[in-house]
């Protein structure tokens, strides 16, 4: 009996001690929760599911989530190596592989549910696909940065660095060829709807009929206007009516009239460039009607009113040379869009930025090819549940999903690979 009492007492004392400790920790947890918070993500290594037909992706150069939370990507079959196309030869040289169609549609579970794209009648398919946007009516917009047959470059337009040469990012004025001077609009089934611009017709950054290697589009639901980040050849944002394609307005950095003067190589210690460098890589409007423009090589975001009035700018990883740090953005899904998610393809990170202060709160990702790592993270988009989707160019060549895990206290500025820790509830 005494033994039972003794054990019972020990159990009760243990329970009381653990209970008090848990309660104290709860209070500490409440204090921690009130500290700086940021959305937390975990990579989903099982997303998407394998592609059928031995299909393989090339440089995956755009991603967009539509109103049904379907994920659309565009890639460049032309970037695949010969060995990656061996299965597509006639007769096949090997079992692997064949280029996937340029545009692929996935459902939330990562199943491939649609695919189309490529040259057709009535439109000029880009020489090098670039960027995809599914607009508020469900239509699919694409751009391109293909130069077509490349003439010899003049010395003044030579690449500024080895990285520039490798990535063909810096395009200057001169006699270089610019094939993809258009954006295209399709239905979700791939039916052609509209083309703005014609191949090889661009007359530069103040030509209002043609684009020059346009990178990405944004369609404003409120005004039914399409904003084009234009692009790899021009130094501007240009706006058209999204149904008729009629020109509305355009402007360059700080709201200036754009010009195509050669800015020379990017110098992080020099005063900020007064024009956008190539490429102007994204243009997105927030809920409070500010336009955020990615000036990729200048490592900065510039913020405008929709009429082109300059508001402010911020630099990110300003020392980044080569292909720059500001590639693409997506806004968080809270009603105020408190955060910006910035794809930084040169540093291979996604930065979580406070939209008010334009300061990096924390970052995740690491260079590499394993799940949760990046090599050339090029594009980013967000679904209605707050999950992020990224695509990678260069030899990254894939789409990844980062599952939104709610808000969490910021404990480090650089989270590294956000490997899954807990199952979704």
């Amino acid at each position, binding site marked *: 009996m005494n033994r*039972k009492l003794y*054990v*019972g007492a020990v*159990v009760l004392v*243990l*329970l009381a001690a*653990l*209970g008090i*400790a*848990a*309660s104290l*920790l*709860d209070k*500490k*947890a409440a*204090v*921690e*929760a009130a500290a700086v918070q940021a959305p937390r993500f975990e990579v989903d290594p099982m997303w998407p599911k394998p592609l059928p037909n031995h299909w393989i992706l090339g440089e995956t150069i755009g991603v967009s989530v*539509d*109103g*049904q939370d*379907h994920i659309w990507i565009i890639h460049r079959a032309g970037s695949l190596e010969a060995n990656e196309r061996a299965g597509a030869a006639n007769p096949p040289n090997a079992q692997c592989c064949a280029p996937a169609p340029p545009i692929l549609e996935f*459902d939330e579970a990562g*199943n491939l*549910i*649609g695919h189309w794209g490529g040259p057709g009648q009535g439109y000029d398919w880009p020489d090098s696909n670039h960027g995809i946007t599914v*607009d*508020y*009516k*469900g*239509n699919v917009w694409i751009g391109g940065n293909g130069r077509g047959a490349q003439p010899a470059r003049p010395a003044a337009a030579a690449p500024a660095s080895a990285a520039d040469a490798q990535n063909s990012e810096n395009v200057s004025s001169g006699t270089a060829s610019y094939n993809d001077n258009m954006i295209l609009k399709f*239905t*979700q*089934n791939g*039916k052609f709807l509209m083309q703005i611009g014609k191949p090889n017709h661009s007359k530069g950054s103040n030509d209002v009929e043609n684009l020059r290697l346009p990178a990405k589009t944004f369609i404003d*639901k409120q005004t039914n206007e399409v904003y084009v980040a234009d692009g790899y050849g021009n130094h501007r944002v240009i706006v058209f009516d999204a*149904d008729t394609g009629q020109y509305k307005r355009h402007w360059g950095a700080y709201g200036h009239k754009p010009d195509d003067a050669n800015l020379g190589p990017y110098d992080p210690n020099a005063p900020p460039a007064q024009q956008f460098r190539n490429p102007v890589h994204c243009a997105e409007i927030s809920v409070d009607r500010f336009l955020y423009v990615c000036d990729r090589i200048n490592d900065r975001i510039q913020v405008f009113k929709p009429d082109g009035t300059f508001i402010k700018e911020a630099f990110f990883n300003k020392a980044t040379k080569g292909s720059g740090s500001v590639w693409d953005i997506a806004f968080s899904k809270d009603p105020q869009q408190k955060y910006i998610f910035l794809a930084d393809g040169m540093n291979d990170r996604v930065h979580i930025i406070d939209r008010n202060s334009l300061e990096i709160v924390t970052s995740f990702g690491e260079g590499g090819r394993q799940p949760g790592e990046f090599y050339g993270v090029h594009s980013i988009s967000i679904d*209605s549940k707050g999950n992020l989707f990224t695509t990678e160019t260069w030899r990254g060549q894939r789409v990844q999903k980062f599952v939104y895990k709610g808000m969490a*206290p910021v*404990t480090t500025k650089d989270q590294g690979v956000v*490997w*899954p*820790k*807990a*199952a979704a*509830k």
Partner: protein
Amino acid sequence: MPTQKISTLRVFGAAAIMAALLLSSPLSTFAHTIPNDVTLQAFVKPSGAHLYLLVRVPLKAMSDMEFPEREPGSLDLARVDPTLREGATRYVSDAIELYENDIRLLNPQIVDTRVALESDRSFTSYEDALAHVTGPRLPDDTSVAWDQTLLDVLFDYPIHSDKSNFAIHPQVAGLGLRVVTVLRFLPPGGAIRAFEFVDDPGLVRLDPRWYQAAARFVDMGFLHILDGTDHLLFLFCLIIPFRRFRELIPVVTSFTVAHSITLLASAYNLGPSALWFPPLIEMLIALSIVYMALENIVGGATVHRRWIIAFGFGLVHGFGFSFALRQTLQFAGTHLLTSLLSFNLGVELGQLLILALLIPVLDLLFRYVVAERMGTIILSAMVAHTAWHWMIDRWSVLRRYQFEWPALQAAPLATALRWMMLLVILAGLAWFLWGEMRHRALRGAAGKAAPSPRNV
């Protein structure tokens, strides 16, 4: 035989005629394809003498409707209303059966219809959705592809009381290859009950009474144990050496108590949520079968030893049951505990049925076919072989997950301490039960050893 031949000929003839008819039909019949993935959103709100059903469904899911077009592929919003109403009736109200106190509600009135863009987010709440379906229409000159739009429709069903028992049977699987229905039920009082079904879930009681929830979960528990090969093999190994009900009672009870504890803990979100946890449990379940089979082969299993092991492995199997339950707890209504206990009851009934079938079969086998010891070894070896392969397979799945210690933050530490409290309670309980069992066993042995007064 001639009759069979004639009917075979008739079948072939009918098939040929059908094929000819299908091939000769105008192409427009096949103009629309069945979409892969359709999400149907719905609100059900009883209010006074009315039940409102508010539904959003993609137009492309109405595969044989011909919507008026301004130009090829572009919806003519000025002329679409009659087609929308027809589609709403054929594809929504005719397909979604609603019941009040088990009597089907018929002839709803269509209050209004709207075309919405896919990017419209008004179906996040009933109020927003209602405002949308009764609010301004898209301008007639909006240029939009018909198969990129959604039909929003509000139905009004007359009912007797908003406090009746309502049930729904959404027979909408034909809308697409995979149809997800996201349904929210808003009974009077402000509660919101959310459901998510894939394809046709059968009759769903939106606010089940306790006995209705209990019946559903007893049924699920019963079917789950019969369907779960690994649980069955574990049970099989458990009883091979003990084939008398009296001996099995403490063993099976111990297993039941243990799996009930972890099942309840898991349902109340007290279980670990790590990604590696389900594969770990699956692997441990296979291990439990291997262990039990090996113990049968080696021999020396006693009832006392076995109920303790059954308790330990029961904790593991309870988590396994909880994974199966996760998607179905939405049918519990407000009766979560009742439903969980009912699920357990169903599992017990299933186990009893298995025992009732297996024990006589094993008895007959050991009596007429093979000696008990040899039979136990052969059967257990077969089970061990199967479970060993499961274990290896599941281990290889588990190895793919990367275990990572959570960062030392206060919230997970507090959770860990609560888990330790539960462990202390369980350890104390086990210690007490073990003492009681031992005490009774000793008393029983002493009673048998002592000479009765009559013999003195």
